């Protein structure tokens, strides 16, 4: 069970959180201007990397804030958490 650091509440057990998929996928500003392939790319395509990954987590049983987590999908090591507005570079 992961130990995840919520940027607002500190380190808590994974059972307090829910997973939100890959981080950094921005909703297109004008979806209707996109072709089918571009929209499908936003909608369906995910990196699913083996190794370093940025993902969204929600402290759903706590402060209910969404934030980013840099996690290695192979080793399960969690490098750091970050606030979405500041982005992973700031962490």
């Amino acid at each position, binding site marked *: *069970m992961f130990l995840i650091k919520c940027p607002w509440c500190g380190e808590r057990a994974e059972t307090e959180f829910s997973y939100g998929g890959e981080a950094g996928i921005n909703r297109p500003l004008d979806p*209707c201007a996109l072709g*089918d392939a571009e929209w499908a790319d936003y909608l369906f395509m995910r990196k699913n990397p083996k190794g370093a990954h940025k993902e969204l987590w929600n402290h759903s049983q706590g402060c*209910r804030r969404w934030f980013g987590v840099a996690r290695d999908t192979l*080793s399960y*090591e969690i490098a750091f958490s970050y606030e979405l507005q500041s982005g992973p570079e700031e962490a």
Partner: protein
Amino acid sequence: MITNRLEKGGRIDRTQPLTFYFNGVRYEGYAGDTLASALIDNGVSIVGRSFKLHRPRGIVGSGAEEPNAILQIGTGSSTLPNQRATQVELYDGLNARTVKGWPNINFDIAEVNDVFSRLLGAGFYYKTFMRPRALWHYYERFIRRAAGMGESPVEPDPDFYEHRNAHCDVLVAGAGPAGLMAALAAARSGAEVIIADEQNEFGGQLLSSNEQIDERPATEWLREVVQQLAALDNVTVLPRSTVFGYFDQNFLTIAERCSDHLGEYQPGQIRQRQWRVRAKQVILAQGSFERPLAFCNNDRPGVMLASAVSSYLNRYAVLPGQRVVVFTNNDSAYQTAIDLQVAGATVAAIIDSRAKGAAALGAAAQDAGITIMRGHIVCDVVGRKCVRSVRVAKWGGDNSSTVDASISIDCSLLAMSGGWSPAVHLHSQAGGKNEWNDDLHCFVPGESRQACRSAGAGMGLWSLQECLRSGHDAGVDAAHKCGFESADQMVPNGRAIDTNKLEPLWRVPAVKGPDQCPKQFLDFQNDTSISDVRLAVREGFQNIEHVKRYTALGFGTDQGKLGNINGMAALAECLGESIPNVGTTTFRPAYTPVTFGVCAGEGVGDLYDPMRKTAIHEWHESIDAPFENVGQWLRPWYFPRDSEDIDAAVARECLAVRNSVGIMDASTLGKIDVQGADATTFLDRIYTHKVSKMNVGRCAYGIMLGEDGMVMDDGVMARLGENHFYLTTTTGGAAHVLSWLEKWLQTEWPELDVYLTSLTDQYSTVAVAGPNSRQVLKHAACNIDLERESIVFMSVKAAELAGVAVQLFRVSFSGELAFEVNVDSRYALHIWTVLMEAGAEFSITPYGTETMHVLRAEKGFVILGQDTDGSVSPVDLGMNWLLSRDKDFLGLRSLSRPDCQRDDRKQLVGLRSLDNESVLHEGAQLITDPDVAAPVPMCGHVTSAYHSACLGHPVAMGLVAGGRARTGETIFASASDDSVVPVEIVSPVFYDPKGERQNV
């Protein structure tokens, strides 16, 4: 009466004799015994039958590695299957039995399998029972029965289990000399320490030996250290506690057996407890396992691990055999021979495969007068139910040849030692790799991937002195990494003696080649022998994981603790590879089997899942309404009168709503309050309709789509103020919708000024539906004008009802004139009662979820999750009118994807049974032509189907490919009895298609 108990010694309490039963026979032992030591005391040598060949088997080990003495402990609802007798503490009245062996373990008819064992090699089941395929189900029953290990109880478990969460600086797994020193060093530095050991007493190997520490008996040192640890406030001491899992970020699970040792069923006591520990640092000091040697018939009762023999002698004061041969390839078993000699047994010989024999212990054995045969091997065992003699050969170290086993030595016990393997299980579970040590001939823990380190025999340190030192160092290091400065402390002196190196002997040569000689077992529990591994290789298996699954090597309750390394070595030899190249199989939790009870903890029965009840629940209960589970909610299903069945009750309730008035508790609907300057902007992006065009005081039926364009949730939403909305969601979707809204606000649109508050529990909803609903509200002292023009259909007004402030919605899920009263939950029961009284003269009728379903189906209103499944778009539902044309909203773009525009998408239609009486089955497949041979192509399925009392015929909805264009067509719904029901595709709105009744 047989007794193998020594006159004195051991850690048993001779003042506390205990009675126990094995296969119905009464025996006696002492407090401090394990079931295994008590069985040995009583001369019980056969404790089971093997898995496949049904060979008689005896006790081999003294701990978690035991493969044979796997017993059913206890009776009835508290019975435990698959218990290793070596780890079961004896208690008075203990009832143990074997599960295999018929008619009994001493005479097992299925031992005939052993005679035909050549036909029962690796992969036997796969090869024999898979053809003809249709018969597998027939074979399987018999195979399962023959293979049974333990029996699960059939009654509910009467015991209590619990989970406990804990945090600590340093967790120490194992309380042998290394673990104890580690805990002591860390604790004295000031760290919070948890030390857990699977045995009832701390001490590990010290309990089974006559070692000395600081020139005193080691047990004296042990007693002092245990006392010191127990006295420290920063140490939690957990005996009978197995660290069974090592998970991410130093999360470890411990199974503590709190009262198993006290007796079968201990009312009021916690039976087992799962500790869930997050540790800053971990020290793994689990010790090591002795390996067997793979010679012919090495599984006969009376062949034991040398360390187990020492353990039975020194710890339990029982002698497993009077005349003993010791067979070894390393020095440690010499100590066993010396221990045996001291205990009064006859050591016929030490057979050492090494030409040079042992170092210091060799000299000691020689001094004790023990015959040592260096450069010899035990090739075979004579005796079937017990060891009678062993066949010994002179051997020059050539593994490829056969030998001449001309020497026969009589004995009743053969103590073997093939060397030691560190218990790398937890290290491996933590993600660490293992490294092969060419000097020690075993895998040792490699670099750790988590904040942990190994100590003692668990990292391949065999001498007591090294164990104490490494434990101390590990404790200091772990405490230091937690920020504690180590206190200055001495490491006590344990014995460090000269040893000669182990010489590997993975396969003991026999008088015939490895494929012809009697079986040389690797895994006793699964009857896997060297010849099975060789057969697997001949049949093309090379990877250890494949060989494991083909031969069953390392399966079962011991998970290869005894035989896996020998098995890997056998595979390596056969492949011409090195052992590290062959590698190990994966180590997974649990380290030893754990009960379902300890996994579930308190989370059973009522505590399995939260149960949500509405504020009006007690009223429903008071008239014995049956309840239906809707998510976690309990909702009244229908309200039977007298002896009514569900059909009669639902028909009555439906007619009451259509003809007069009904009342329903709709409190489980999700309710979300949305406020903020940007609330309208936000909701315009969420809902498909134009929220910004709604006037204050108006309601709308709204749907939310996922970004894939599929309908996600629906419900009435109201504009209470310029920047204030009140959303309702489906009962099951409430939590998800709130999370969905929060996610968009936080991740994509943090600039929006919007606040979300869940009101699901704080507000209750009472629906009053039917032509007389307006009259009922008037009678209930509603303070506002309720006429059609004053509170129009799809609007909301603040009002007072019987003196209580409410939000009064004029909305309808039944198609009738209806109101929904939203009220603070604290007044909900009051409002319900008031409305019931006010409606008495109209025979107001409470109705449940079933009637609600029928009423809405008559109107063609969908229930998401029943009529939809996450692959249904609003267009499929015929809800195009809800899709705003002049704004973007979530999911809009997906509706123009090619897949969403296919003509043959499944669309919602009504289905009318042509016979006017058959109620279709929900979920039934729909087909176009009933005369086509199977497999019949499906064109859709039924999603809702009921009998309509008010229409006098069945109504149904379904999703049908290209359905709307097929209106008027006759298709067929499958029925349960292989027949089909012809149905006509019609509009889903069966009742009041113009919607006049709700608008009066």
